[in-house]
């Protein structure tokens, strides 16, 4: 609004038709869920954006960060604001799948490239004139679910119970794990849901335990993932417990405490970069990012969500020089050139290696996941 008022103050003139003087800076708009239910995902992303350099290839970069409060309407308002008021060249966001899905139409209509930090493959697939403009940095749920299923199969798991959030995150995981489990010949014998801030999950856990599956997957993000886990341990559940990569933050370890021991989860390699072989190219990139992040936010503060934001930056940083060759920032041509360059990305990120193409706007493969285990409050690479 302030900017609106300024716009009016500087004259209706500009809006009636005189072209804006081309701005030499590159404007990058970010909308993320720093408040609301997805705040634990959005906050490390915002923290990461604050670390990022303000020049790329000699061009000044303005980062404009807005909070969408985990709300789809707000996310759409934000992207419209970023495009209309800030004339951004690329939009990063949002944190969660529904918000990102809601933003696609705006990005496509305005022909602005958008890099989502949400999990669902639906954001970029199938490839069509709308998703042409959309990219995403996190591993698809499917990739991670496959990792779990493969690990389960290798460890003799025949039956699986699922408990997850009663929201888009939990739904996404449920759908993917059912598919992956079927492929691996594992039977899903129980499906339960709970709310992030539920005080008790006793009912669900009793039902899970009664079904007595060989393993249980908890589809949750952040500390709420600890609630069913503690309940399961309290009810003497003896099978294997799997979590998703959503829980990989230090607060989860703090809250789950000793009840977390032995928990398995698939994860982007960055989280345990110290344990990777030196030959892995991801190690160096992750080390750079995590060192910087932990220097500012404290030792052990790393989360994988911050990595998604950093990867978005890496993609942009690689695409900008290409796009600059073709057009000036702030122009339609620049947006198109940036999009084309992003689509040709071949970038080593913190989570994996992005190899994009016209049909592939995520570009991560098996290198983008490792199985880890919680061992005495530490993330340890599982064999």
């Amino acid at each position, binding site marked *: 609004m302030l900017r609106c008022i300024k716009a009016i103050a500087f004259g209706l003139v500009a809006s009636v038709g005189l072209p804006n003087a081309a701005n030499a800076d590159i404007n990058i708009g970010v909308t993320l869920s720093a*408040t609301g*239910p997805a*705040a*634990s995902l*959005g*906050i490390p992303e915002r923290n990461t954006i604050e670390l990022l350099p303000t020049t790329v290839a000699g061009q000044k970069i303005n980062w404009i960060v807005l909070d969408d409060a985990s709300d789809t309407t707000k996310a759409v308002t934000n992207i419209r604001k970023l495009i209309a008021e800030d004339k951004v060249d690329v939009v990063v966001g949002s944190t969660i799948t529904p918000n990102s899905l809601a933003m696609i139409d705006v990005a496509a209509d305005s022909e602005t490239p958008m890099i989502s930090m949400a999990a669902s493959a639906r954001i970029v697939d199938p490839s069509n004139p709308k998703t042409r403009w959309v990219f995403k940095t996190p591993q698809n749920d499917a990739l991670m679910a496959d990792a779990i299923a493969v690990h389960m199969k290798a460890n003799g798991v025949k039956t699986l119970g699922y*408990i997850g959030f*009663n929201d888009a995150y939990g739904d996404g995981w449920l759908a993917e794990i059912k598919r992956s489990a079927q492929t691996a010949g594992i039977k899903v014998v129980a499906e*339960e*849901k*709970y*709310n*992030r*801030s*539920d*005080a*008790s*999950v*006793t*009912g*669900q856990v*009793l*039902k899970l335990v*009664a079904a007595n599956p060989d393993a249980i997957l908890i589809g949750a993000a*952040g*500390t*709420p993932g*600890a*609630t069913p886990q503690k309940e399961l341990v309290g009810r003497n559940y003896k099978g294997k417990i799997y979590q998703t990569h959503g829980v990989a*933050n230090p*607060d*989860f370890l*703090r*809250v789950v405490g000793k009840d977390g021991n032995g928990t398995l989860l698939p994860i982007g390699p960055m989280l345990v970069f110290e344990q990777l072989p030196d030959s892995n190219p991801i190690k160096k990139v992750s080390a750079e990012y995590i060192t910087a992040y932990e220097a500012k936010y404290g030792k052990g503060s790393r989360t994988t969500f911050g990595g998604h934001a950093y990867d978005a930056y890496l993609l942009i940083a690689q695409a900008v020089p290409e796009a600059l060759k073709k057009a000036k920032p702030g122009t339609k041509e620049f947006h198109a050139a940036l999009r084309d360059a992003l689509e040709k990305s071949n970038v080593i990120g913190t989570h994996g290696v992005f190899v994009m193409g016209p049909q592939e706007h995520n570009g991560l493969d098996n290198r983008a996941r490792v199985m880890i285990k919680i061992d005495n409050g530490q993330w340890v690479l599982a064999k």
Partner: protein
Amino acid sequence: MDLSIAALLTQDGITNGAIYALLALALVLVFAVTRIIWVPSGEFVAYGTLTLAGMQLGKPPGTVSLLVGMAIVAGLLEVYVCIRRGEIARAPRRLLLWTGVPCVIAALVWWSAPLNLPFPVQVALTLAAVAALGPLLYRIAYQPIAEASVLVLLIVSVAVHFTLTGLGLWFFGAEGSRTPAFASASFQLGNVNVNVQSLLVVGTSAALIGVLYVFFGRTLYGKALRATAVNRVGARLVGISPSFAGTLTFAVAALMCAFCGVLIGPITTIYYDSGFLVSLKGFVGAIIGGLVSYPLAAAGALLVGLLESFSSFWASAFKEVIVFTLIIPVLLWRSLTTHHHEEDE
């Protein structure tokens, strides 16, 4: 479902129901005296748990700065009122009461947080800090519009809820916390494992219901407090200042909520925004009690807890749908069987 599962679900339902009941009591208490539907009660629960968790980690919790900030605002308001009424001589005393006392509590918490004092001391300090927020909140947000309609007071409550939730995120972060148990023991009752902490929650609720019931139903002062809600002028005539009644009520209610937070910290994870759903369910109980009856409010809250527990076993995805659909007939029954005076709401 066999008997042991039913017993476990019942135990779980009663524990949660007791938590909701504590909130329901606080809501009834506040409404009975001030006509405020106290939406932010849940935030006080969350602040209770998270403040204690912060002290456990040896970090001065954000509650301290909120306490100091509100104390300063309340003190300034009091001084302003004194000056406007030409009673400047009273100003220092008011300032000491409204700014001095909370600041002392805040200083104590801040100073003691890194010392890792014994657990009971930390609990006492947490309760003092969070309970002190209650009267300050009443003084700043509600007292200036104490005569407004119930709807306006409700909307102010919602605004307070927004503010406290936002501050909660800033103070405590997006992630949740648990606190150590008062008693980690458990024992066998038949073939059901009973958790002592749960018993503590249920016992506290039951005791408080008794105390409030007797206080408001049997004692003169309690009845007089209730009368302030109905007739503020009348209350003033018989010597009860509505603002004093409001302040006292908020202190008691805030203390109850903070205590509730300390009690449930060990059995569940509490987040900065946990309060809303918890207080909503407390509100369901309070309404079933017609916003006047403590025992009925507690019974309603217990009903919600049990419904929730059993429906999360039967069909967890539709838990809220089941709970909230099933309370509609209860509400209808209560509405049709209660005498109601037409009032200008």
